[in-house]
């Protein structure tokens, strides 16, 4: 059936099974590279997108349930030439190894800090406790997140 998705400010009408997880519409139909399939179980965060300001796991969210909502993917934040401040923080801190988890880390942290600009280190840690980076780049990533947190709090 026809489903209209509003992604990064643009509307797309797609012919989809309404039970299709949002991730497949984003990565296959809309050919976006940001959201990634990590587990398909909502356990790792790799597929995270921001829907109405909330971090949402797109691998376990049906397209039907977010029809018409504002969906932001990693691509919607910034570009290599004009990165969003949180993206720039990750470049500044050289906070990556393979980079596969970056989408989940950045989108989860952004959604959390935008809502909780005064979050403590422990609260950030708690917010990131359901996100995986199997290269265990935690030190740099948490530094980049803290850097963005300071900018948001200002």
């Amino acid at each position, binding site marked *: 059936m026809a489903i209209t998705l509003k992604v990064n400010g643009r509307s797309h009408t797609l012919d989809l099974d309404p039970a299709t997880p949002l991730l497949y519409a984003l990565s296959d139909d809309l050919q976006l590279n940001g959201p990634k399939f990590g*587990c398909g179980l909502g356990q790792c965060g790799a597929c995270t997108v921001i829907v109405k300001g909330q971090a949402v796991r797109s691998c376990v969210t049906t397209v039907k349930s977010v029809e018409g909502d504002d969906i932001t993917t990693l691509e919607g934040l910034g570009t290599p030439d004009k990165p969003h401040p949180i993206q720039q923080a990750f470049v500044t801190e050289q906070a990556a190894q393979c980079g596969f988890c970056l989408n989940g880390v950045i989108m989860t942290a952004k959604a959390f800090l935008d809502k909780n600009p005064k979050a403590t280190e422990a609260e950030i840690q708690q917010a990131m406790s359901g996100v995986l980076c199997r290269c265990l780049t935690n030190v740099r990533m948490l530094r980049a997140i803290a850097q963005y947190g300071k900018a948001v709090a200002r």
Partner: protein
Amino acid sequence: MRVNRRDFLKASGGLIVSFSLRAQGPLQGSPPLNQLDSWIAIAGDGSITAFSGKEELGQGISTAQQQLVAEELSVPFDRVKLIYCDTALTPDQAHTSGSQSHPANFNTDNLGQAGATAREALFRMASQKLGVPVDQLTASDGVISNGSKRVTYGQLVEGKKFSLALDPKAKRKSPSQWTVLGKPIPRPDLPELVTGKFEFVHNVRLPGMLHGRVVRPPSVGATVASVDESSVAGMPGVVKIVVKKNFVGVVAEKPWQAIQAAANIKVTWTPGPPLPDPSTFHNSLRMQPARDTLMVDSGDVDAKLSGAATVLKATYLHPYQMHGSMGSSCAVADVQADRATIYSATQAVWYQKSTSAMILGLKPENVHVIFRRGSGCYGVNGADTVTYDAAILSQAVGKPVRVQLTRKDEMAFENYGPAYVIDQRASLDASGNITTWDHESWSPGLGNRPGTNRPGNIITGSLLGFPPADFAPQSAGPAPVRVNNNSNAVPSYLAAVTGVVQSGRVRTHAVESRFFTGPLRSPARLQNPFAHESFMDELAARMKADPVEYRLRHLRDARLKEVLSAAAKTANWETRPSPKPGNRRTGIVAGRGAACVLYEGDNGYTSLVAEIEVNQDTGKIVVKRMIAASDVGPISNPDGLRNQVEGGALQGLSRCLGEEVTWDNQKITSVDWRTYHSLPLGFEVPKIEAVLINRTEGEVMGAGETSITLVAAAIGNAIFDATGARIRQVPFNAERIKAALAARA
């Protein structure tokens, strides 16, 4: 789509210079390692393209290689474009693995030597063109001049070819002259990675591409009895059901359709034989037929042990662990009647080419494998097997097919890092010196990397009917005269390697595994030093000696001693025996532990000090601080090295605290992130201090597997220091820690 090397060079208007000195030759059809043109091309506009067989997996090696070529050719970093691991373009350098990329390309062979050969050739050409002796010329920013006359690399190369062999005498820049190497140059891939522009293999999209899914056996060793194709008849988008021996897959137009079809297809399986009982598994390894190796034998070990006043014995256990890549593995293949183009995150494009050709029944020269980065692999994860999956499904439909594994298929059938049982015995003299050390290990194996011709070493090849490498029990031959400590089976403290203890014996027993196994970051080199460095701590404790001092007095290698001392110094190590005096037996107590090793016996000096707290009521550990020292020769990119040391330390922590492959009598039960326990991004992350010892001369060594190697030992030693309880089985989960605490005298 297909680009051959000649076309590429024609298009880049370039000149290629190249050569190499590898003992076993590269695969047929690959650019010769001893020819400059295999490694470096300079285009008419002076831009430089370098070709490497060592790929970027996330470890930062592409940045370092780009620095290397820029350095040797005296151009800025950005002037070099690096192309790696494409069988139409780049030399065959076997696997990108084993911390071998730096040794392979930065010492006296291959890419680095190609850079030096090219620079000297350019100087000779400039001398001729300008009529100025070579020794009056300098190069900067791609221009060679004597101050008044100048010529660019592009002008020199125009239309000509180097057609030179790599010159082993071409002079390399010494680390003290480096201006590009040795600098913390940021990784060029990050801006695209953080904005979602970067193309992983998961993002390769070919015109007309279909989506495949595989249907793996429900249990280990199960075989296909029948497939009911009618069970998915009429499902939307389904293009084809593919059954080949025990391989079952589906192809559909869209990913979600393929997933639905794979979930619904009715396959009847015949179960395999039951799996070994997990509760007696480790001990059962001792009883199996084995391939035995005697690595070291001074001939006097039994006599020393029986005559000694003090003998210590301990057994250490390590589980199977998995690579558990963050993104499940993915590949895209376009297989036509007589040729194939394959996008793969394999660690060895040339071996993927030869083994894909085998499973497809194609000539290897007609298979083109192009590396695209996958999710961090840490060894032989699912990247090779999913490449076969995509190739077989594409061949069946004659169209490009993308396959990504499910989380469960990734975890239930990968080539695990093997389990280990390690017995240690040592005798001590009256003054506490080690007089003999006896090491014996058992480890199960099945399959491995596919290599040049063993597709059956991984699950898909096996399901297609290819056998894994043979296992034949055999008794040990005599110990070799010269010890190769590649697996770090030999304790550092033996005189045969880096220590002072003259008497020792090292026996290993390889037995058959029911699960596929293969290299997982620091393979064997993590398990063996866990046992060695824990046992060394037990010996020091028995003699009431400080664990660092006790190590130093049994070491001979000056660099190993230095790297251990450096970590201890940064940690403000308090010289005293373990356990820490005055710690209570309940509640939270603090302790510290140390460990050190020369990775692979010759490829990276490393040491680690860990400071931890143990909650003796809950068995929970919090690591407060990790100090990781590293001496890997001249450092090509200090920030890249730091990133590897930090990540390795935390990945080691994850493996040591929670990671363990589990199974029941039929199947693997650790199949997702609820059942296989990786540390998440948000946990109480210790402060990590990387102590980097830089060298301005000598060979470069590997760095990707150094800190990870020592974590389990350093943490175990810290637990003992804090509590007096010794834990000898990884992972150190709360139950095991509580059991070890309860077992205290």
